[in-house]
């Protein structure tokens, strides 16, 4: 990108002066209100740090992070009693909006949610490229990040995000429904998978619950299939696509979309997937109205909460090929957090991340979200439901596709074209062409 013209820099200086001037006036005008507010306001800034040595760090995260973070923030209080962390959580869209604003205005929270890799406006690459994430490379845990995961954590060899591990995409299924339909074991090839669906359909249940009204759910079936239809044949597809030598429309993506639509054509989805939400999808599988849902393992706790017993549900890899050896799976680093490069309490903020990087805390964080811990020791636990994925994670797993996409427009385009395909409003060729156009922007 071209450098900022000098005139604009000058404009910024004078704007800062203007701010100060206006600030003085406004403070005077608002004095009564400010005073009233201050009297009830806990000290949060530098003044307090100088006095008692206490520091208040702010953390803004997405709602999915609340369970693990609440526990670890409480644990940190025992390790570092002088630091308190004020955390707030909100749905992803809202967090993205408020964080982008804060980052844009140059006043990010000390710690905040970061998505691994690239491909979204809150992803590590996009924020680190803007110079707004603190470099964590000096911390011990960063030395043990498995090689395959490095692109998710690192930009130009420096680590900018902490994440507790990875989750997989596969079929979350209801064991009872499978049993009643006479399914003995989870399928290992695409043909077997279709047979299983057929059996469940004959048993009078919906084989696959699909909540495509919730945008992020639309992508999961493609993501489950593309590792087998694209990456099993060409593990370097991402690099070729980045170099402009490969496209969605001219690759195994076509086949994956055809398989996606075949499931719909054969009546394996619930009616009206575009009007069905993630919540309804969850409930259909958990209560046995549907056999399975193709989902990310991080939502297992939610499915279990909705089920009568947590053991009703398990998970298996979706076999995207007829040769079982050619079945690959998607395994992506879960949403994590980073420290704002311009934080006034940078040392304390990165110290907290270092604390999260201790093995016992990686274990605790991963357990709370059913993730596979980033690094493992004797105390690491792995959710029994995802055990069937472990044989794949070594050399037949690829990160979630968007983590290598060059901009934040491809993923929302994918959401929209899948909805259009399900509604019969576009063709696979046009849909993938649209994704290719977004990719080139």
């Amino acid at each position, binding site marked *: 990108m071209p450098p900022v013209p000098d005139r604009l820099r000058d404009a910024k200086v004078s704007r800062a002066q203007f701010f100060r001037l206006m600030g003085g006036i406004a403070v005077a005008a*608002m004095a009564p209100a400010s005073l009233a507010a201050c009297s009830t306001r*806990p000290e949060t800034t530098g003044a307090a740090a100088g006095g008692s040595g206490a520091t208040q760090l702010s953390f803004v995260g997405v*709602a999915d992070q609340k369970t693990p973070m609440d526990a670890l923030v409480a644990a940190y209080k025992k390790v570092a009693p002088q630091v308190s962390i004020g955390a707030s959580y909100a749905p992803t869209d809202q967090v993205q909006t408020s964080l982008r604003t804060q980052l844009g205005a140059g006043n990010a929270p000390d710690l905040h949610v970061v998505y691994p890799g690239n491909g979204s406006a809150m992803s590590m690459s996009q924020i680190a490229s803007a110079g707004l994430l603190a470099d964590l490379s000096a911390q011990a845990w960063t030395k043990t990040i498995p090689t395959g995961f490095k692109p998710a954590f690192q930009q130009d060899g420096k680590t900018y995000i902490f994440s507790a591990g990875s989750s997989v995409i596969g079929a979350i299924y209801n064991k009872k429904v499978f049993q009643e339909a006479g399914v003995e074991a989870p399928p290992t090839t695409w043909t077997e998978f279709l047979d299983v669906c057929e059996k469940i359909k004959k048993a009078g249940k919906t084989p696959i619950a699909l909540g495509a009204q919730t945008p992020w759910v639309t992508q999961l079936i493609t993501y489950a299939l593309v590792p087998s239809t694209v990456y099993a044949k060409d593990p370097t597809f991402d690099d070729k696509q980045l170099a402009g030598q490969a496209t969605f429309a001219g690759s195994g993506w076509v086949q994956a979309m055809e398989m996606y639509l075949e499931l719909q054509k054969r009546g394996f989805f619930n009616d009206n997937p575009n009007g069905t939400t993630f919540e309804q999808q969850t409930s259909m599988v958990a209560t046995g109205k549907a056999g399975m849902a193709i989902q990310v393992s991080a939502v297992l706790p939610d499915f279990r909460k909705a089920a009568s017993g947590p053991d009703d549900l398990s998970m298996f890899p979706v076999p995207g090929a007829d040769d079982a050896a050619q079945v690959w799976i998607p395994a992506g680093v879960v949403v994590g957090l980073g420290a704002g490069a311009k934080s006034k309490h940078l040392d304390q903020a990165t110290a907290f991340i270092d604390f999260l990087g201790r093995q016992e805390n990686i274990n605790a964080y991963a357990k709370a979200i059913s993730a596979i811990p980033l690094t493992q020791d004797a105390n690491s636990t792995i959710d029994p439901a995802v055990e069937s994925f472990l044989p794949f994670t070594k050399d037949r797993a690829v990160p979630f596709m968007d983590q290598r996409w060059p901009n934040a427009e491809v993923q929302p385009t994918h959401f929209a074209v899948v909805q259009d395909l399900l509604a019969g409003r576009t063709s696979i060729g046009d849909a993938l062409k649209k994704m290719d156009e977004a990719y080139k922007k």
Partner: protein
Amino acid sequence: MNHLRYGRATFLLELVMIAVAVAFMFPVYALITLSLKNPAQIAEAPLSPPAPPTLDNFAKAWSSAALGPSLMNSTIITVASLVALIALGSFAAYFLARVQTRLGYGLYILFLLGIVLPFQLGTIPLYQLINNLGLIGSPAGMILFYTGVQLPFTVFLYTGFIRALPREYASAAQIDGASHLTAFTRVVFPLLRPITGTVLILNAVFIWNDFFTPLLYLGGSGFETVPVSIFAFVGQYVSDYGLVFAGLVLGALPIVVIFLVLQRYVIKGFSSGLKG
């Protein structure tokens, strides 16, 4: 439409209106029914009355949202903003309604411009401004924000109302030697009571319900407002309608209760505000 007596036609109209109201309430019925059910009950018969009803969802929503302190924060921010809006808005409107110059009229149009501007335009510069004032994470920043953002509409309401008031009241007071200030506070402002009611309720509804701004300015500060606390647990992965709906009921309850208690004044405030 017979204004004169309660005849058969009126009775029929009454029945029709009640039927419409019952149908109108259907979403509210669904909301409350679902909030009183556990997931299994919801899956089985979503719309039947809860049997037996459970308050678990409410207990869970209350504790995860930490609503006690949020209610306090929301109240402080809403009340202080309203006081500032009524004070600044009514004074400005008195000037704008009475001034005779083109410049004064231009100023009025300038205020109205604020009603059509999309908020997104100024989001980032405004955030920088509040930050430079040192008001991020403080209720004072929110009060400043709401006062500024809601002023155009407040000024619009007050100006329209004052224009329709006879000038003689204030003039008479001034002949008696009162200053503009005294004439306004003693004579004019009390006459503005109906429109002040309208200003109060409409701004209160907006400020109390606003979610994005407090998330942006107060997130992580310990001063979260009610909607911010409620939506903290209505996350991407929350699949439990009963719990979400209990949260929505809790979040909406304070403002609905205030409306029900004051409904006579609220609706009258509209009517008399409009009649002048």
